[in-house]
């Protein structure tokens, strides 16, 4: 019984120690991000790393999910005699739900793992210490630039995912029965307001914050050689994806209350 209590106590302490360290890390990054000198060149490199290099992946994932939703929607709506709702079902489900979450999870997998492993590898080989010893703030150079790149790029990547999903969804439908693109768009977006589409797209900036923050935190606090690098990469993806989905629950409720 005492060993169970000790294990529970260890788990409890570890949980709060992790969140406490994350809080301190976030404060350090925030301080570094808002004070000069600004690392513009590294930020541009990270924008390319997060944005341009994730684009092919989110485009393919978006195209695939568009076809899947199109097939499922046509089948389900036909059963209930609501085929006329096809366009708006596809548009709303892609833009409000699937596009943002899919983009977040794809970027979390690619970028989160990459950042976590890269920073962890730099940590265990003392490269981060070397940066600090060279009088350069590693929170500014390594963490703030990566997190900011994720925040800025996630909404843009989400727009790309949405566009590809809608396009492929329309193509999948048009191959089965005639539906012009103009008809698809005008029917899909009829009665829609900016409030229906902007908040779900821009909430992905929060996903970006979560992905970047968790990956940088896991990478820069790692220890223990190659095993530590592997652990940091895995934890970056697992925790980043988990917190992203949990944050989505809160943000969906927030958007429903304040924007609809």
């Amino acid at each position: 019984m005492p060993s169970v209590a000790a294990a529970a106590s260890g788990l409890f302490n570890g949980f709060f120690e992790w969140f406490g360290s994350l809080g301190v890390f976030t404060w350090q990054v925030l301080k570094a991000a808002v004070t000069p000198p600004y690392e513009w060149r590294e930020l541009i490199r990270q924008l390319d790393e997060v944005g341009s290099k994730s684009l092919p992946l989110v485009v393919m994932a978006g195209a695939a999910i568009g076809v899947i939703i199109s097939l499922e929607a046509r089948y389900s709506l036909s059963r209930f005699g609501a085929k006329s709702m096809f366009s708006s079902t596809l548009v709303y489900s892609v833009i409000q739900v699937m596009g943002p979450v899919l983009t977040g999870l794809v970027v979390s997998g690619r970028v989160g793992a990459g950042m976590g492993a890269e920073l962890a590898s730099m940590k265990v080989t003392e490269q981060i210490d070397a940066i600090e010893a060279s009088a350069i703030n590693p929170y500014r150079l390594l963490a703030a630039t990566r997190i900011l790149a994720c925040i800025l790029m996630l909404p843009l990547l989400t727009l790309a995912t949405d566009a590809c999903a809608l396009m492929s969804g329309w193509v999948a439908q048009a191959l089965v029965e005639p539906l012009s693109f103009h008809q698809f768009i005008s029917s899909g977006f009829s009665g829609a307001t900016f409030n229906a589409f902007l908040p779900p797209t821009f909430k992905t900036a929060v996903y970006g914050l979560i992905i970047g923050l968790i990956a940088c935190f896991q990478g820069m606090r790692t220890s223990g050689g190659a095993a530590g690098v592997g652990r940091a990469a895995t934890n970056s993806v697992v925790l980043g994806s988990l917190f992203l989905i949990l944050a989505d629950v809160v943000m969906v409720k927030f958007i429903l209350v304040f924007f609809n």
Partner: protein
Amino acid sequence: MATAIDNAMKQRSAQQDDGVPFVAVENVHKTFGVHRVLNGVSLSVSRGEALAVLGRSGTGKSVLLRLIIGLEKPDTGSVCIHGQDIVGLALDRMGEIRKKMGYLFQHAALYDSLTVGGNVAFPMEHHRRDLSKAERDDRVKQLLAEVGMEGDIDKMPSDISGGMQKRVGLVRALALEPEILLLDEPTAGLDPISSAEFNELILKLQRERQMASIVVTHDLHSAKAIAGRLALLNEGNVVIEGTFSDLQQSDIGFVKEFLNQ
């Protein structure tokens, strides 16, 4: 390069010797978990002086160096750089002090995504924005020429040997013309001939730049060659401090054992 070195030396000569040691470590304790690494260490280094910190592996020599450059914080005690206690300083304020210090890591810690030239240019790109790219490139070439590596400027760190990586790490540490050089096991992993060459190189650079230096090593030959004063660490404390002949004349059992290794 000669101009840059001359300027640095003139500045140093112009500085008043106010009697304040450049580095002063006072009664420092450091514990990792239950393992006490440093147990009340006190040391000081003046401008232009070379101190070697000796000791067996795992006696906290590298930790001492990391405390001096602020990569670790002591549990108690103070670490002063030219009179300024650096314990608890904010990162950016600490950065200003670190610009006066060059640090050679035990495994060089070169940035593996940058070339040899990129590694040497890295500190200058961040702190010498007054230099044009051409001026910076010239300085990188001149620094690499000093260690005989001007032909390796475009190579990646993974394509050069461990000894060459250490030489690159050394010139990277010198890129900002520091007032003190901290060397963590500079000859570890090098063969005896390369070790002797590396020691010569460090001595030459110290003489040319009139820098203070702290060398952490378990290599007695290297310590003797590089530093005029030696401090021997054991069980987290300084057992003896003095010249090599002071150590030779000591009656302390551990000192005799260490010298006869």
